[in-house]
């Protein structure tokens, strides 16, 4: 009987040597190094992601931390109560695998990754434990995630979100939900919702939105001034970055783009096919698809995803700056223009896509659906029909956070871009 078996103590490897950090670093290196002529002001964002995702630096925040799992949680209310919203949607394959313990294998990577992240000891981005997690009842997978998140020891608030957006009843229902959410926040923070606070909070986000819209408008220029991978990185930073600092950085980027525009700068060849990106949201470090498109010589000029455009585009109009009116207007903003596929019918999404194609002079559309994200998969058909009618080519890609289909995807994307180029040449 030999008894020389050794007990190996748990050794916490430094984060920057972990697989997770490797995944982020690998993606970031691709984003930064594979492309010449990155805007100088993007350095802020590269640095931010390197610090947060590769080095595991802590993300600072003011007041209480309210995590959100969807863009439907009204962040203005959270700011108004002196808390900080933090979007928890995660793009890491590492967490995706960890989250697979909770969800069926064939479910959405995003939800799995978010669950995996919330369940891990060291949450990256390092935000600490949220005081409250707001989980809007949007898609089925997120709905079912609530209980699991609660099981991990988090306090979860289920923000009831309607499935139909056309009806007046659901509008009223949603306004009620938002009001109740405000009540929950009041309970959490012990603060009162006042006209001044809410107005200040709305000013914060509307300034950020104005900056985003300006960036958005620069992307109309052909040939492009900025690549889509950078734009995605910018909007991804909005998830966790301080909103004021983020806005300043975007305004700086806008200033640089303005200079680029005046100088006649081209970030891509004039022939490069312009692509509209839609479907499941690319979230760092899963910028696989946008990156593949741009590595293959295309350029993502705009998107219709909830990690970028849908999150920041729509702005709130208020008629009377009274708390009641502001809250209802905010509620409307989060429901009415939303083009999330969880809604029963979604004509608005198709119209929005067509409008974006027209507006941004896009040559084709890439539709990403995370395997298991049923709503996006299901809506593919109606969107494809619409584009077919309009004579706009679309590439539908079903994928997840893993990188093992990269080779096959690159073939498909290249073929798609080649066909776009061909069409373009043909038309000219």
């Amino acid at each position, binding site marked *: 009987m030999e008894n020389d078996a050794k007990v190996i103590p748990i050794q916490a490897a430094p984060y920057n040597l972990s697989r997770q950090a490797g995944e982020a670093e690998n993606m970031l290196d691709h984003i930064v190094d594979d492309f010449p002529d990155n805007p100088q002001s993007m350095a802020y964002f590269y640095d931010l992601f390197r610090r947060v995702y590769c080095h595991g630096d802590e993300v600072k925040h003011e007041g209480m931390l309210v995590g959100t799992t969807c863009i439907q949680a009204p962040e203005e209310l959270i700011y108004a109560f002196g808390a900080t919203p933090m979007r928890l949607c995660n793009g890491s394959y590492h967490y995706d695998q960890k989250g697979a313990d909770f969800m069926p294998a064939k479910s959405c990577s995003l939800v799995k990754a978010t669950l995996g992240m919330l369940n891990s000891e060291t949450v990256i981005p390092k935000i600490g434990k949220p005081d409250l997690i707001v989980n809007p009842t949007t898609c089925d997978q997120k709905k079912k995630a609530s209980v699991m998140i609660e099981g991990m020891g988090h306090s979860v608030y289920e923000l009831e979100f309607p499935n139909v957006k056309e009806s007046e009843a659901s509008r009223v229902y949603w306004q009620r939900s938002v009001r109740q959410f405000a009540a929950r926040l009041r309970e959490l923070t012990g603060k009162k919702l006042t006209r001044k606070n809410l107005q200040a909070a709305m000013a914060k986000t509307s300034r950020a939105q104005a900056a985003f819209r300006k960036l958005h408008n620069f992307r109309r220029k052909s040939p492009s001034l900025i690549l889509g991978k950078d734009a995605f990185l910018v909007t991804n930073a909005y998830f966790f970055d301080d909103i004021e600092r983020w806005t300043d950085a975007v305004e700086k980027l806008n200033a640089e783009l303005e200079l680029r525009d005046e100088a006649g700068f081209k970030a891509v060849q004039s022939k490069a096919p312009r692509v509209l990106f839609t479907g499941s949201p690319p979230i760092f470090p899963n910028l696989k698809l946008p990156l593949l498109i741009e590595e293959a010589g295309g350029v993502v000029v705009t998107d219709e995803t909830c990690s970028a455009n849908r999150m920041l585009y729509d702005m709130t109009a208020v008629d009377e700056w009274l708390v*009641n009116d502001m809250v209802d207007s905010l509620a409307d903003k989060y429901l009415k223009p939303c083009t999330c596929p969880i809604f029963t019918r979604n004509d608005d999404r198709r119209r*929005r896509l067509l409008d974006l194609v027209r507006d941004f002079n896009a040559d084709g559309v890439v539709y990403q659906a995370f395997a298991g994200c049923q709503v996006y998969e299901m809506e593919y058909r109606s969107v494809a029909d619409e584009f077919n009618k309009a004579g706009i080519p679309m590439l539908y890609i079903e994928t997840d956070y893993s990188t093992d289909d990269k080779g096959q995807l690159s073939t498909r994307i290249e073929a798609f871009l080649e066909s776009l180029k061909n069409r373009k040449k043909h038309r000219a």
Partner: protein
Amino acid sequence: MKASSPRLQALRDAVNHVHFNRFRFWFQLAAFVLFVYGGYLAIDLGSRLPFFACGYNQEGRAGVCYLLPLQHQLSLPWARLFSYAGIAVLTGFLIFALWFIFLNKGWCGFICPLGTIQDWLTSLRRRLGIRYSTYSHGQFAQLTKVKYLLLALMILIPLGIGGGLFSHSMSPPFCLICPARMILPMFTGDFSQFTIDFSSSAAMVMTALGISITALFLVGSFVKKRFFCFFCPMSALHYLISKPALLKLKKDGSKCTRCGDCYNVCDMEIKEIADDIKNTNIMTDDCTMCLKCVASCPETGALKATFAGIPIFESTEAGFIKRMGKGVQHGK
């Protein structure tokens, strides 16, 4: 972007970025002064005006609301109404239509003194920090028909008077119940309309109804934006002849995100403005063409007011951000 001279574009931008509510307030005030006190300056624009420049305001009015002469004309004895006086009715209507065509329902949103008073009551309420009321969807659908009913009565009752079916003391029926009859003369110090006429039972009922509706008007327009316009038969009459109007409210459905911002600011709670993406002419029968929707639309070119086909006020992103950026401190 359309190719146009830079100077024209600069002018357009200046218009599109205007602080709209402020502009509208001053415009309405000027129109109010003109039509309630203009008579003192010997201004007389006739008696075919397509808005409530009340004829009961003897001293100050700078013109008369068309509904007053219309009801009087219609209450002529039938023998005359259906002979030579009919021509006068037609020419009167023609002049009214010409006035109307010029500004469409813009008369309601920018000129009508009664509308302006309602907006003032609204801003008083806002300053007091009291929230406005809204109709539910069902109430809206029901109440929106009232103005057509009033319009029909406003035509049928005078005809009945002319035919001897109703008492003359009911004439002019709508004016007797219109709040403008009491409220507008008040602004020139004339309170004589605040009376109940006991000379006949018809007159008594009508004047009592009139005072009740005025009281209702005051309460209603305090808690509900543009309370009366919803029931205004003039508005219904406008809508019936609005096709050839020069001023138009246009919507480009393809640019609309249906965010509902326009619906949110709409005094009349018109849902179509946000939801209808098919019609390019988006003016509905309830619309007062206040153009607040255009000012609060963040999508460039989605909503616009055109005059004879020329865009004069267009929704723009920059204009929206400027107008709605309340309390936004712009970074350096």
